[in-house]
């Protein structure tokens, strides 16, 4: 393929330019992608360390690792805030999205490169404000529920301001991606040829764009509540604390899909390549991303079933919540159908993709339990929720993130990692994750509440297993990180081919790492992205 592509020798890779200024003032979407990748990975590590601390505390029923229960509350607030606002919400969408989006649709950059850089700097400013605020311990949890968030001595104004600023960055990124996908597709890159990662990014961008402003105003109101005592959320002044939760979840439920949909996109890219089959049900997967993006706005009150909302609303929302499971299940069925009779190659990224399917299915199905009103009342605020959420977020998003990292590593950095070590790290991550979180389903079902530093002795075995699991998981991630960092420091480990997995997608048709302007000439697309299998010999012949 690829007349529009330069040969390895005659181009300047986008990583060539050195120096701090070439990074902090870059408008190159690939470099901005790296800036995001590095920043979010850093916060992921810190968030992970606080989680290890919490697990260590929970090994025994008494308080031993932390000095006080407040300190434990501070730890889970830090863990939740870092993981949600710094890592998982901007996570895949901003890092992989930025790097891949223009490459995949055959454009030189996003529609507004300078706004793209601005949005990264706004993101950094937001993290700076938030981190500064969190230096004074905060104990509100990441949800800032009123009335506690109005009464606590923590710097809630600063924290919410930080989140507000982060939201602004999210909005700009979403806006940029939607415009890019609509206006900058290469000739011939029709909607029915678009890679599924792009469909997923588009659905995510809609949510980033249209859900985020609602949390923006909510946090502004919370700030005003503390600063001017306006009383919107204060029953004593005629306000309504549940209004805060309504507003908060109107954003934060769609935000859950901001976290997971990009991972769906990554999985949809990895599976057909390593199953050597055209993706099954392309349109179903593409449209289901949209269905999720739309339905996710109809389900927010299922987070509030025990908050004292009306039973009528709870019943309506319990029903609507079941709807969102349908498009999600459609995706899983289609991935499995893609694997069926494929000639599967177990590359490390494929291992993460397969674990995604298994773990996300568990996370998703337990979510259906929780969507059922009566069961939710029993399981609410127990470890069952914690386990469900981590099966979706780690089992889903983080597995997708790791999978994508291993899949596009060569393209990002023009280096090769040790595949055997990567597989070993995957094994530890997969086992460690399950050992950590599977017991939490049981203890949650038996009534262990979340967010407590101490607990009755009867739960000790579950908690101990869970803590051991967290060590295995931590070790796995450590090995993976080292394995991915080492090649970057060496002057060897260059890839043999720019398209080692025989992918048909556009980003693999340019050299690794890609040239500064991506394409010498903008290519014209004449075929579907997933024509593996039947046309394989043809595709290979052209390579």
């Amino acid at each position, binding site marked *: 393929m690829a007349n529009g592509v330069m040969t390895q020798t005659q181009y300047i890779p986008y990583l060539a330019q050195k120096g701090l200024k070439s990074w902090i003032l870059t408008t190159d979407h690939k470099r901005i992608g790296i800036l995001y990748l590095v920043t979010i990975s850093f916060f992921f590590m810190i968030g992970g360390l606080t989680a290890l601390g919490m697990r260590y505390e929970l090994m025994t029923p008494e308080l031993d690792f932390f000095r006080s229960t407040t300190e434990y509350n501070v730890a889970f607030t830090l863990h939740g805030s870092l993981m949600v606002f710094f890592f998982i919400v901007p996570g895949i969408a901003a890092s992989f999205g930025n790097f891949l989006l223009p490459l995949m649709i055959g454009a030189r950059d996003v529609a507004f490169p300078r706004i793209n850089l601005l949005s990264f700097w706004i993101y950094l400013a937001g993290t700076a404000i938030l981190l500064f605020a969190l230096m004074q311990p905060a104990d509100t949890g990441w949800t800032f529920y009123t009335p506690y968030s109005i009464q606590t001595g923590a710097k809630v104004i600063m924290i919410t301001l930080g989140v507000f600023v982060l939201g602004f960055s999210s909005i700009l990124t979403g806006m940029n991606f939607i415009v890019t996908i609509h206006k900058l597709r290469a*000739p011939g890159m029709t909607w029915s040829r678009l890679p599924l990662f792009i469909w997923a990014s588009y659905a995510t961008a809609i949510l980033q764009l249209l859900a985020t402003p609602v949390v923006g105003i909510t946090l502004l109101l919370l700030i005003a509540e503390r600063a001017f005592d306006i009383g919107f959320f204060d029953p004593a002044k005629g306000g309504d604390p549940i209004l805060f939760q309504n507003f908060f979840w109107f954003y934060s439920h769609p935000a859950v899909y901001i976290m997971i949909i990009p991972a769906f996109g990554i999985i949809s890219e990895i599976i057909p390549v390593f199953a050597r089959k055209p993706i099954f049900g392309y349109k179903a997967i593409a449209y289901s991303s949209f269905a999720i993006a739309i339905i996710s706005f109809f389900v927010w009150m299922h987070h509030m079933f025990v908050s004292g909302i009306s039973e009528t609303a709870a019943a309506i929302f319990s029903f609507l919540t079941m709807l969102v499971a349908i498009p999600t299940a459609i995706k899983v069925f289609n991935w499995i159908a893609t694997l069926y009779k494929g000639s599967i190659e177990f590359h490390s990224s494929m291992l993460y993709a397969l674990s995604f399917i298994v773990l996300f299915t568990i996370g998703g199905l337990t979510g259906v339990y929780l969507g059922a009103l009566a069961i939710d009342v029993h399981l609410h605020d127990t470890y069952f929720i914690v386990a469900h959420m981590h099966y979706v977020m780690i089992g889903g998003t983080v597995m997708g993130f790791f999978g994508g990292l291993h899949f596009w590593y060569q393209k990002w950095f023009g280096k090769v990692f040790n595949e055997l070590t990567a597989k070993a790290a995957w094994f530890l991550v997969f086992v460690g994750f399950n050992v950590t979180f599977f017991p939490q389903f049981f203890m949650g079902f038996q009534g262990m509440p979340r967010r407590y530093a101490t607990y009755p002795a009867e739960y000790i075995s579950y908690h101990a297993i869970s803590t051991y699991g967290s060590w295995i998981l931590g070790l796995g991630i450590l090995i993976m990180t080292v394995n991915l960092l080492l090649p970057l420091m060496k002057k060897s480990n260059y890839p043999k081919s720019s398209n080692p997995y025989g992918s048909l997608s556009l980003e693999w048709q340019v050299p690794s790492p890609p040239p500064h302007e991506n394409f010498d000439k903008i290519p014209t697309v004449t075929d579907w992205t997933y024509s593996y299998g039947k046309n394989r010999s043809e595709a290979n012949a052209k390579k």
Partner: protein
Amino acid sequence: MSTTAQHAESHAHGHGLGETVTHNAAKFGMWLFLGTEILLFGGLFAAYALFRAKYPDLFYESHKKLDISLGTINTIVLIFSSFTMAMAVSAAQKRNRKWLMILLGVTFICAAAFGVNKYFEYSAKFHHDIFPDTNIFFALYFMMTGLHMLHVFLGMGIILALIIMAKQGRFKEGNRYTPVEVGGLYWHLVDLIWIYLFPLLYLIG
């Protein structure tokens, strides 16, 4: 996927985007951003709907303390500024630099007048011991008009930047007037939101 090389007409233009593409992309991007603005105010509209349904009498009694004539004048001023902004875009399309600057200038003055008017309104309220924590109605009043005022200030900044750009001759023959059109869209939204705020806050029947 087989691809053939295509001679991109855009290659000569620096970053490689055609001018029509840039223009349409900028406009579309602004429309998307305006959608987020609507939802940002949306939280306040939702709170308004909820509390007005809950406390109709409080809303009715409190709104009497607002000055309808000041509100009406501000509405007229803002609509007129929207008109001059639309005319400014039209002047930019015709590359009429003189009229572009005059019309942008008038728009800026209208925006400033709106701000001055609002300043007097706020000080009158403070003078009568009415603050955001007086009751839910005034909390909404100050939050809604305050957030709107913030957008007016931002809009003034944008208009000022456009005037400076026009002065530098950025919108002359052969150059794009995209910034004028996009800035205009933003300013019209400020007007649009006020069109709702006015009857909601000042005209509770």
